[in-house]
């Protein structure tokens, strides 16, 4: 396996939901890559489609929604072309996911230990016996030991006692650790984290993020972190992709995004945050509202709220411009720079520059 091949290559995927007689384009022509052991942050406000993006990666979009087009190449194989059983073998084992509200994500009817053990059993991590209960005692014992190990690793105190606890008996932080334990049980290569700390207290947030960082360093697990908190992403991630109205509007390394943001939306997001140590400028919110995902314009979706808007912004699809190696920006402001080759919408932009 060539270490230059990215772990995950997402190519122009579109996820849509029919709603009434309209189509909601939750994920609109999204592409990005992720290397092994990398941490990618996907930042955007609620409703911009970032959760749907994660669900699309695991093909968990429920009918009647679907991933309409594109490729999702995981270690070279296109997930969208796989059969259902192949996909199921991927889920939990190669790619795992943790969710936002741990209390509602854990099944209230089963013990914590049992839920972690289920992952092990599903993918035959510990043993291979397909014997039904109660003939699988040996394997269950082994699995239980492994579960206790994992529980300790994610920081659940006294795992032996906690194995038979139910989710509602845990605090929020411990519940989230349980979710992480479930995700890690089969040592996946990629961890998808959908706002894992949003429902938690700030102190617990820090603990969980540290835990995840540790996992990334110890196990080399790549992580895609979806969050609305740009600051969190800045602390934690290697690279950041900013999403707006279903599209990626800017992508780059953490430093590039935070120090030299190029998309007006990203700049707006950074301006929104009060900063310690700086003379407090007035916090400037971004005016306006996110357009409905069912009524997306073909041109720039941010145009109505942008302080730099020009006529050309409303006239056609905005391509992604490559401003520095690895730094992509979907905005005409940067049309000075090199464009990614697949667009042929030259004339209008040239006209713009001539003025």
């Amino acid at each position: 396996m060539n270490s230059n091949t990215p772990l995950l290559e997402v190519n122009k995927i579109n996820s849509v939901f029919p709603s009434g007689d309209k189509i909601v384009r939750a994920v609109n022509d999204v592409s990005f890559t992720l290397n092994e052991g990398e941490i990618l942050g996907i930042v955007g406000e609620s409703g911009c489609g970032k959760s749907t993006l994660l669900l699309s990666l695991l093909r968990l979009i429920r009918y009647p929604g679907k991933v309409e087009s594109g490729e999702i190449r995981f270690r070279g194989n296109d997930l969208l072309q796989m059969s259902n059983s192949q996909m199921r073998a991927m889920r939990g084992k190669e790619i795992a996911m943790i969710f936002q509200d741990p209390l509602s994500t854990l099944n209230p009817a089963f013990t914590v230990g049992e839920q972690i053990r289920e992952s092990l059993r599903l993918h035959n991590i510990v043993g291979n016996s397909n014997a039904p209960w109660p003939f699988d005692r040996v394997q269950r014992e082994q699995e239980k030991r492994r579960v206790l190990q994992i529980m300790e690793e994610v920081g659940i105190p006294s795992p032996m006692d906690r194995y038979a606890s139910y989710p509602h008996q845990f605090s929020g932080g411990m519940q989230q650790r349980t979710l992480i334990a479930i995700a890690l049980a089969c040592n996946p290569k990629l961890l998808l984290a959908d706002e894992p700390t949003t429902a938690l207290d700030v102190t617990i947030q820090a603990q969980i993020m540290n835990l995840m960082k540790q996992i990334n360093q110890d196990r080399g697990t790549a992580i895609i972190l979806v969050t609305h908190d740009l600051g969190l992403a800045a602390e934690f991630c290697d690279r950041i992709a900013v999403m707006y109205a279903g599209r990626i509007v800017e992508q780059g390394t953490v430093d590039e995004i935070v120090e030299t943001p190029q998309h007006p939306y990203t700049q707006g997001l950074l301006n929104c945050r009060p900063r310690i140590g700086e003379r407090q400028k007035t916090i400037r919110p971004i005016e306006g509202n996110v357009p409905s995902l069912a009524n997306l314009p073909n041109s720039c979706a941010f145009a109505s709220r942008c302080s730099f808007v020009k006529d050309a912004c409303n006239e056609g699809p905005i391509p992604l411009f490559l401003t520095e190696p690895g730094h992509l920006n979907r905005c005409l402001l940067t049309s000075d720079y090199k464009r990614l080759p697949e667009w042929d919408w030259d004339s209008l932009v040239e006209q713009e520059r001539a003025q």
Partner: protein
Amino acid sequence: MRGIKILERVLGTIPIMFGVAIIVFFFIRLTPGDPVDIMMGGGGAISSGELENLREEFHLNEPLHIQLWYFIRDAAKGDLGYSYVLKQPVTSLIGDRLPATIELAVGALLFSLIVAFPIGVISAVKQNSWLDRISMSTAFLGISMPGFWLGIILILLFSVRLHWLPVQGRITLGTGLEQRTGYFVLDSILTGNMEALKSSLLHLVLPSVTLGAPVAAVIARVLRSSMLETLRSDYVTLARSKGVAEWWVVIKHALRNAMIPTVTVVGLQVGILLGGNMVIETVFGWPGLGRMVVKAIFDRDFPLIQGAVMIYAFTFVMANLIVDVMYTYLNPRIRLQ
């Protein structure tokens, strides 16, 4: 620890049974007329001398609460009074007919559960499919239909027109069933009497279906409703993200949680089973407790009616107790308070 909780609940039914006894006690006082007459029912004429003796015997000269005490004490001992109409103790009369009623009730319950569970689950999984629509329409019909009418229609169709199933009774005469437990199905198995087994089962079909149909309808609807909710929940998405196969997600992850509110409804439906029991037994000429009570009403055999109502109520309370325990078992949040 769980055992104590169960014990608590069992003990909790005792005050309820007390209350039931009190209410039933007062039932009989509703009837206008001379109490001795009432106790005797249509049992016969008596001389005035005997009247006084009987008054003593029925404790009618004592204050009300003493009478109540006698009543409860006797009931707790298993003595539910004496039927002057049928000239037998109430308890043995009820005991004779109880197996037939239980067989019917069990048959109906089995039928309704076997029908309602798959339908409820599948309708929820395949929401809005033709299967879903047909099932729910049928279920709607089921809750709107009077039971006695369904029974008559089924008799018309399956017995009279098609001759597939017998019209009345519990078993065809001539199969020579030797009774051991009073439960015909059980007895025929125990005595190896295949004719009797076949006959008793065939006789069970229509009454069980009639009695169980409205119950099945309700359970199917509630189950579907709960399943729809659980299937939308986050933990189901998590299960899928772990790689669990869809059918397993439905059965293990979703159903387990959907059963929690359903179980409570099942408990209430047992009440419908017990009530409808009387009607259905009448329709099908089933020789059980219900039919005996109906006849007792016309015979004005009040002690018998009283005893039977107590037994029905008692059974209902027990059934709800079982449901309660099951609920505690199914719902960890309640279990561990």
